[in-house]
């Protein structure tokens, strides 16, 4: 095999390992969908793609259409003609959620229907009446919203014991949509003669109130960037390590390739650290951040050791870590956002009560409670409890013999608990991604020397160490992945969130491949789509406003997810690689391109 064909083959394997296989494994696909679900999926996918196009085309769209601008603490500027599209996408995602709720287990159904009812009543309350009397007037919009809620609840009760039927989604969509069309239409027709355009205000109110519900998706999207980086590292080495051909050929050629790659990557990583330290070029390591970074790596090592002891099986591969990520990322993100659901409920209820004429201490109390839920104290408590809780769950899972999940949960728990420290002591703990990357690089080089001295540095271990070095680069440079997109959009934050949303949409639909009595397949598919479409819609609103701060700062949450949970994922992958390299057993834990079994 010529060098060119080997290189081509390696590139092909890298592409398959990085892009093709994760998508084949994790994409939304028909795994026995009930009749009539396909059109719903098509609607959801088209809505998602449309929202992505809105984000990518936002600069062009803004340049073509008149901007509606309102000036306040932030300048909200929107291409006015796009507002109905935003409302449309919001309705589609709400209808997806509510249709899914018809067949889930009772408590989920009740919670989701309650949330839908609040949203519909809230939208109905936008109709303030002819005289702008607000709460005093019983308006058509409000009445229609109440009728819509009654219809949705009745439908929920009637369809509880039935299986999914194709007409449910169009019906729910029509009910929710009709309510919104009536209230928005009346609101517009009442305000326009006065020269007042409530469209942007209504859109901003809807997106900023409901947008909090997209936070878990944004956090998970942040993790997806790190996931992509880890897959890239493992796939790259797998591609180099496993050229096609006979085993004989493999044993003869791979070590030389691996040694060359190892040397090149090591020179890059060490060179970068030295350039940063000596010449202040690139992401220089702040020496003050090194001790705690070492402490974090040691703490992760200790947690892994403890988990291994509890499970009586130490070595977990990076593939196992990645394989468990999808089942962990969204629940952890949801746990971190646990205060946001009641916050949204309180905000919606306060606005509904006010719109229906209620005032006074009830509304004040709700808003006060909402402020409390948004406050630093709540954030600190949530992060601390989630961080420690994840470590406890990791221990329990390890005792049950689970692999991958305990390691991931423990590492994420450690980082989440660390993120609560500055909120408690008003002093940021001094660690940073460059310092962690430096510690990983040095640790990997030390490991290489130790293994070489002990004559255990075989091809498998060399490959693992290359992965570790690449992961150290991913620790610092993974945001570069979003750079091409940010060049188009002009904003790194939106690009990072968009990258994460799209990658999650393409690869994280595993949950829809299964089925249970509590969550039938159709409900899983629709909940997945509802989450994806709503998240990307909120992001599209921010992109069209050319300022995510105009509604809810989803990019900040995506960056938080990337920096905290993504860093934890990369570190977990490093720990997996190190422990595999140190393992005495002969099990081949080389990075392996994922394969599709179905």
């Amino acid at each position: 095999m010529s060098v060119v064909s080997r290189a081509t083959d390696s590139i092909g394997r890298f592409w398959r390992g990085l892009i093709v296989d994760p998508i084949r494994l994790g994409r939304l696909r028909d795994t026995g969908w009930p009749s009539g679900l396909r059109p719903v999926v098509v609607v959801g996918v088209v809505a998602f793609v449309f929202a992505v196009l809105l984000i990518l085309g936002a600069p062009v769209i803004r340049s073509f259409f008149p901007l509606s601008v309102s000036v306040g603490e932030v300048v909200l500027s929107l291409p006015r003609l796009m507002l109905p599209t935003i409302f449309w996408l919001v309705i589609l995602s709400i209808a997806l959620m509510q249709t899914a709720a018809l067949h889930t287990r009772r408590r989920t159904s009740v919670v989701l229907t309650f949330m839908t009812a609040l949203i519909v009543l809230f939208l109905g309350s936008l109709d303030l009446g002819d005289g702008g009397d607000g709460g005093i007037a019983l308006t058509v919009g409000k009445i229609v919203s109440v009728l819509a809620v009654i219809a949705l609840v009745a439908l929920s009760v009637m369809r509880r014991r039935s299986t999914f039927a194709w007409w449910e989604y169009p019906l729910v969509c029509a009910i929710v949509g009709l309510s919104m069309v009536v209230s928005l239409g009346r609101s517009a027709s009442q305000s326009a003669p006065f020269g007042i355009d409530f469209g942007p205000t209504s859109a901003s109110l809807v997106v900023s109130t409901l947008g909090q519900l997209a936070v878990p998706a944004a956090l998970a999207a942040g993790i997806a960037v790190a996931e992509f980086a880890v897959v890239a590292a493992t796939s790259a080495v797998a591609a180099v390590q496993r050229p096609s051909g006979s085993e004989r050929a493999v044993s003869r050629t791979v070590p030389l390739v691996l040694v060359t790659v190892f040397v090149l990557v090591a020179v890059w990583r060490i060179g970068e650290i030295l350039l940063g330290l000596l010449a202040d070029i690139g992401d220089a390591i702040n020496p003050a951040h090194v001790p705690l970074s070492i402490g974090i790596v040691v703490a992760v090592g200790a947690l892994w050791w403890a988990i291994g002891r509890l499970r009586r099986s130490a070595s977990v591969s990076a593939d196992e870590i990645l394989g468990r990520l999808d089942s962990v990322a969204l629940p952890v993100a949801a746990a971190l956002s646990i205060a946001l659901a009641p916050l949204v409920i309180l905000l919606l209820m306060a606005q509904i009560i006010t719109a229906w004429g209620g005032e006074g201490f009830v509304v004040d109390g709700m808003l006060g409670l909402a402020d409390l839920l948004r406050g630093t104290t709540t954030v600190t408590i949530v992060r601390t409890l989630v961080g420690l809780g994840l470590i406890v769950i990791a221990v329990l899972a390890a005792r049950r013999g689970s692999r991958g999940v305990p390691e991931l949960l423990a590492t994420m728990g450690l980082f989440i608990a660390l993120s609560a420290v500055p909120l408690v002591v008003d002093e940021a703990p001094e660690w940073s991604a460059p310092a962690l990357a430096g510690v990983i690089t040095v640790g990997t080089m030390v490991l290489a020397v130790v293994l070489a001295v002990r004559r255990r540095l075989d091809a498998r271990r060399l490959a693992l160490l290359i992965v570790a070095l690449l992961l150290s680069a991913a620790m610092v440079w993974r945001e570069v992945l979003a750079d091409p997109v940010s060049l188009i959009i002009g904003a790194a934050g939106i690009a990072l969130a968009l990258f994460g949303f799209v990658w999650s949409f393409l690869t994280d639909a595993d949950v829809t491949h299964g089925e249970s009595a509590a969550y039938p397949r159709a409900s899983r598919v629709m909940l997945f789509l509802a989450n994806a479409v709503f998240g990307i819609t909120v992001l599209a609103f921010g992109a069209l406003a050319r300022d995510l701060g105009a509604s809810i700062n989803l990019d900040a949450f995506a960056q938080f997810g990337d920096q905290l949970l993504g860093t934890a994922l990369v570190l977990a992958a490093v720990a997996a690689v190190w422990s595999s390299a140190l393992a005495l057993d002969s099990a081949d834990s080389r990075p392996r391109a994922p394969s599709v079994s179905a």
Partner: protein
Amino acid sequence: MTTGNPESIAAAVVAPPLVDARAEHRASAAWLAWVVTPLVVLLLSGALDAVDQAAPEVLGGTSARYVPPDGHRSVSTDAAGTTSVAEASRSIGIEGIFSAPTFVAATLFERELVDELARAQWWRSSYVDDFGERGADLFRLSDDGITQVASWGGSIGFLFDPPIVLLPADALPGDTWSSQGEAVVGGALTYTATFAALRAEGPFTDLDGREIPLTGGCIGTESTIVIASATESLSTTLARSAVWCPGRGVVWSSGTIDDQPSGSFELRPAALPFTPTDARLAAGWTNALDSSSELLPGRELPLQATDPFFGDSEVTGQYRVPPSETRDGRLVTVNDQGDDVQVWNLDRVAASLSWLGHPGGTVVSVGAVGDLVIATTSRRQVVAYDPEGRRVWSWNADELVIAPPVAASPSEAFPDVIVAARSGTVTRLDAERGVVLWSQPIDADARTPVVVGADLVFVADERDHLTALDVTTGAIVWQNEIGAVSRLAADATTGLVAVTLESGSLVALDGASGDERWRTALTGAAVGVVVTADRVVAMSEEATVALDSESGRVTWRSGGGVALVGGDRSSIITLVQPRAIELRSVSSGDVIDRQLIAASGPSSSVFARAVGDSLVVIESNGVLRRWELRESRDDQ
């Protein structure tokens, strides 16, 4: 399987058709699902588009097309050669009369139901001439056509009841109409107006004989308006021929006022180069401060506009756009509705409206560059006014300009204008004509603010870069991926740059190279950063910290606040806290003087500006307070 049981046999016989029926049913259901689901989704989209209504139908019939659009600017000369600049403002509802003198607005409120006024469509034409004489005419678009409601600014103000019909709805050549009524409240002056519409067949020329283009189907009117006192002891007759053109209003008029010739002729192109004058330079607040400075108690200044005829009017409003200040010590704000630029003269007693401009659309930011007042608008325009309030030029940016425009060279008397559009295009505009001198994209969305120092323009962007551009050529000198910048300041001489990051860091960079000099943590959301000769002072909502410019060593700390005023190498810095103003020594942090701020109503934001030799704090709820320095102790 059959067992001989008749029922089983029957079931076996019937079963196959049942299976076929279910399959058929499923097939039809699938077909229906593919039709109904997308159909409902598309119908929903169509319904949302259909009910979305941003603006009402324009009143005034076909005659409304002659009314200039909102923000339209026209320049004309009169028979005496005096040039006048007019701006058109179009509005709907009560806000349309808010800019009128209080007497006019109150009278209109008395005459009509609030609901009718709330739906009324207005056209205001405000003008200012070479001599600084200014005034405004208020017109209404209604089923009657275009009517003139009021006129103010001159030695006599008018409030017509009923309004004079200037053009009836759907006016056509050959139509005639007339109206009569009060010209001032109480009937002390009355008017009688007769009009005839005619075909506008030119040529119509200006004073220099240049033909005024009649575009889009213009219409002519001939009118005689007699304004007389009740006793007819005083009478004025205005005889006028006028030409209205679509979207331009009256482009040509000629006639007499009591047999004296009068007229106005539109200038096209309406170029009005800005000619800098030696404007009075106000003493700077920061320059006036020293270690013995003491503040007089702050005063809450009423905001008022004075009309020669209608008298004083109280101005109220909420101020959401950060204000600015002119070189001659005037305050620049944006009005409550967000569509007028207001320039105020401040003294110890009151803030008096000097002039207002209407650039069109919503004003996004205001700044003062040399003698120019610059506004950026929702129409992506950058609009420049001279010190008299005449719109001298406007320039179309490729995106919204959110950051206030700044001077290319703060030390120059007539500096050019630097603007950074949200798209990331940084542009230098010639101050005289608003033409582009250079334009440089930075390949990312620009954040606010834009700062100039040591011949460099510093712009932060949404891709976490801080970019320095050569102020002369626009070339990018350096770019540093520093993080998301929230506040930015630079020393005019050394170019030392200090930024606060959204991540909670305070970073100092060398202006020439972009190299990071030092970095430290700043707790709380940053509200301001200032670079002085040897210190960097940063304020957040939770803390104020002063650091040595060279080493980044903390020299003093204080509590947080809402605004920081200083720089210009001053040794004194002003800290605006929620309930107090503090003067502090930059080097030691010692408090030199402190004055309490009286409580006012709820306010979402507070802006502090050094305006002339005073400090002004303006809250978004419209409360304006002013502090000035006590005269030296020797004078007391």
